[in-house]
C-alpha cells in the first residue's frame, strides 16, 4: 500500500508540474500583453476599454511581470509548496479561498453525476449482457450508443427546453436545492453512464465466456449465483479504470455544463479565469483537478487490490 501511495504522490507532483507549467507558459504567450489584459479586468471591468499606461505599470510591478517567465514560475511553485497559491487578480482574495468556496458546487455536481452514471450504467450493462441479443439488450445498447454520441451541451439545451421550459418540472438554472441539480447531473452523467454501460456489457460478456464460469455452472450453481458470485467481481476489474477516467472527463464536462446552467462551480471559475487571464486561479484550478485525479486514482487502486488479488502481488 505504501508503494502505491508513494507512486501516486510522485505521479501527482509530475502532473502538477507538467500541467501548471504548460498552462503558465501558454497563458503568458497569449496575444496582447498580460499586464494590459489584467489591468482591464482588475481596474476597468470591461475588456473593450483600453487601460492607461500607469495602470499597466502598476500591474507589472505588483505581480512581478517584468521578471523572466521561468523565475516567475519558480516563484509560484515555491509559494505553492508553502501553501500559498497566490491571490486572484480579479478579486484580490486568496486563490485557495476562491476555489474552496466553489468546491461544494462542483463536487456535488460531479459526485451526483458519477453516482447517477454508475447506478444507471452498471445495471444496464449487466442486464444487456445477461439478456444478450434480447430486446432488452438491443434497447440498452442502442440507448448507450446514443448516450455517447449525443453532444452533452446539446443534450443540456434540449433538457432545459423540454423539462424546464415546456414542462416546467425543473428550474432552468441556479444552485441550491435538489431540483436544480437534476438537469446538470443528467446532462453530465449521460455520456458517462453510456460509456460505463457499454464497458460493463462487454466486460460481462467477456467474463461469461471464461472457463471458470463453465466450471461454476458445472458445479451446479444457478445462473443467478454464477453471475453474482463468480462473474460480477471479475466484470468490475476493467470497469474500474474507466470509472476513474470518466470522472476526469466529467470534470472536463463541468466547464461547459456549469456555464449553461449558471452553476457556480470550479468549471465556470476556470472559464472566466481563462478569459480574464487570472493565472493564479487557473493554476489553482489545475492543482485542484490534479488532486481530484490523485484521489480518484487512489480509490481506483484500492478497489483494484480489493477486487483482483493478482494486483499488488505481481506487477501488471
Amino acid at each position, binding site marked *: 500500500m505504501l508503494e502505491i501511495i508513494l507512486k501516486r504522490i510522485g505521479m501527482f507532483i509530475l502532473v502538477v508540474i507538467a500541467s501548471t507549467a504548460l498552462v503558465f507558459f501558454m497563458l503568458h504567450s497569449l496575444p496582447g500583453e498580460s499586464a494590459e489584459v489584467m489591468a482591464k479586468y482588475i481596474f476597468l471591468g470591461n475588456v473593450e476599454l483600453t487601460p492607461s499606461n500607469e495602470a499597466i505599470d502598476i500591474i507589472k510591478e505588483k505581480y512581478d511581470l517584468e521578471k523572466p517567465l521561468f523565475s516567475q514560475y519558480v516563484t509560484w511553485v515555491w509559494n505553492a509548496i508553502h501553501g500559498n497559491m497566490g491571490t486572484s487578480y480579479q478579486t484580490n482574495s486568496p486563490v485557495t479561498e476562491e476555489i474552496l468556496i466553489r468546491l461544494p458546487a462542483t463536487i456535488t455536481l460531479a459526485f451526483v453525476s458519477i453516482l447517477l452514471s454508475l447506478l444507471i450504467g452498471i445495471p444496464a450493462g449487466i442486464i444487456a449482457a445477461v439478456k444478450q441479443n434480447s430486446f432488452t439488450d438491443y434497447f440498452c445498447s442502442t440507448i448507450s450508443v446514443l448516450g455517447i454520441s449525443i453532444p452533452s451541451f446539446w443534450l443540456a439545451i434540449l433538457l432545459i427546453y423540454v423539462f424546464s421550459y415546456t414542462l416546467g418540472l425543473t428550474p432552468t438554472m441556479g444552485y441550491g436545492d435538489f431540483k436544480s441539480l437534476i438537469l446538470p447531473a443528467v446532462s453530465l452523467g449521460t455520456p458517462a453512464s453510456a460509456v460505463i454501460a457499454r464497458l460493463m456489457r462487454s466486460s460481462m460478456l467477456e467474463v461469461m465466456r471464461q472457463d471458470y464460469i463453465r466450471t461454476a455452472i458445472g458445479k*451446479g450453481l444457478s445462473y443467478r449465483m454464477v453471475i453474482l458470485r463468480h462473474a460480477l467481481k471479475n466484470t468490475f476489474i476493467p470497469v474500474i479504470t474507466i470509472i476513474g477516467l470518466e470522472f476526469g472527463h466529467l470534470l472536463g464536462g463541468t466547464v461547459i455544463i456549469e456555464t449553461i446552467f449558471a452553476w457556480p462551480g470550479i468549471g465556470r471559475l476556470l472559464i472566466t479565469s481563462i478569459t480574464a487571464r487570472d493565472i493564479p486561479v487557473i493554476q489553482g484550478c489545475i492543482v485542484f483537478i490534479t488532486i481530484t485525479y490523485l484521489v480518484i486514482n487512489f480509490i481506483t487502486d484500492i478497489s483494484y487490490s480489493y477486487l483482483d488479488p493478482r494486483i499488488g502481488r505481481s506487477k501488471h
Partner: protein
Amino acid sequence: MTLLSIRNLKSYFVTRDGVVKAVNQVSLDIFENETLGLVGESGCGKTVLALSILRLLSENTVVEGKISFKGNDLLRLNEEGMRDIRGKEIAQIFQNPLSSLNPVLTIGLQVSEPFMLHRGMKLSDAWQSAISMLRAAKIPSPAERGKEYPHQFSGGMRQRAMISMGLACNPALILADEPTKGLDVTIQSQIIELMRELVKDRKASMLLITHDLAVAAELCDRIAVMYSGEIVEVSEIKDFLSNPGHPYCRGLLRSLPLNGMEPIPGNSPSLIDVPEGCRFHPRCKYAMERCRNEHPEMYEVGNGRKTRCFLYA
C-alpha cells in the same frame, strides 16, 4: 451395470464458415466403477461430447439424442434437475486449471462451493470439508493454501485443486477433460497417480478425455477412439494396445515415436466438411471402393469390442 448411456448423440453448432458437426451419432456406455478413455486428435469432438453430457454448451449448439443417467434423460431434464446433477452426480475436471479457476476467489471457497450447494453446509463447515478435500489431493498445508488465490498456485497444485473440487461431493461419474495437458512429465505422473488413487478408491466412474495414449493406457479400463466426430473403436485397453482394430487406431499407435513414428498420411478432415462414406477413407491404406460410398456401422469384433470399419463387416 451401465451408469451413463449415450445414444445417437449429435452436437452441431453454426459458425460463420458453416455448420460444425462436432459430435455425430455417438453412442457410448460408461459402466459403474470403470474408467473409460476417450482419445482422439484435437478437434475431433471429444470435449464437445463431454460438455454435451452436462449441457454446458452455448445456446447456439444443437444437441440431439439421448443421454440416460440413473434413469434420467439428461437432455430432457429441466434446468433445476440438471443443477442437482452437476457437481453432485456428475463432476467435471477441466483442462487448463488456471483459466478454469476463478481468479478472484480463494481456492478454499471454490472447493467449498459444491459442499454448500449439494450438501447444504454452512460456509464454515464447507470450508473444513474443502480443506480435508485439498489434503486428500495432497496439497501441502491445505489450511493456509486454501486461503490463497489460483495465481499463487503452481500448475500442478491448481490441477489438484480442480480434482478436489470435482470429487467434493463423491460424484458417481467424473468427466475429466485432458487433466494432464500442459503439465510437465514428472507432474503429469503425479496427477495420474492421484487420480487413480482418488477415483478408484471412491468407486466412481470416469470418462477421461485425452489425446495422449500413454495417459489413457495408464488410467483406463476401456478406451473409445474418436475420429472426426464419430466413435471409431471401443475396446478394452489391453486389447487395444496390443491389437488395434480400426486402421486409424493402428496408424495412431504406429505414429508414436517409440513405435516407429510412422506417420498417417494426410490431415484430419474439418468438422464442417466431412468426407463421404467412411470418414477415414482418404487417409486409409486399406480403403476399398465401398469405403468411399458407404458409411460403416460399428461392427462387433468380439470381447466387447466394436469397430467402425468394413474390414470387420
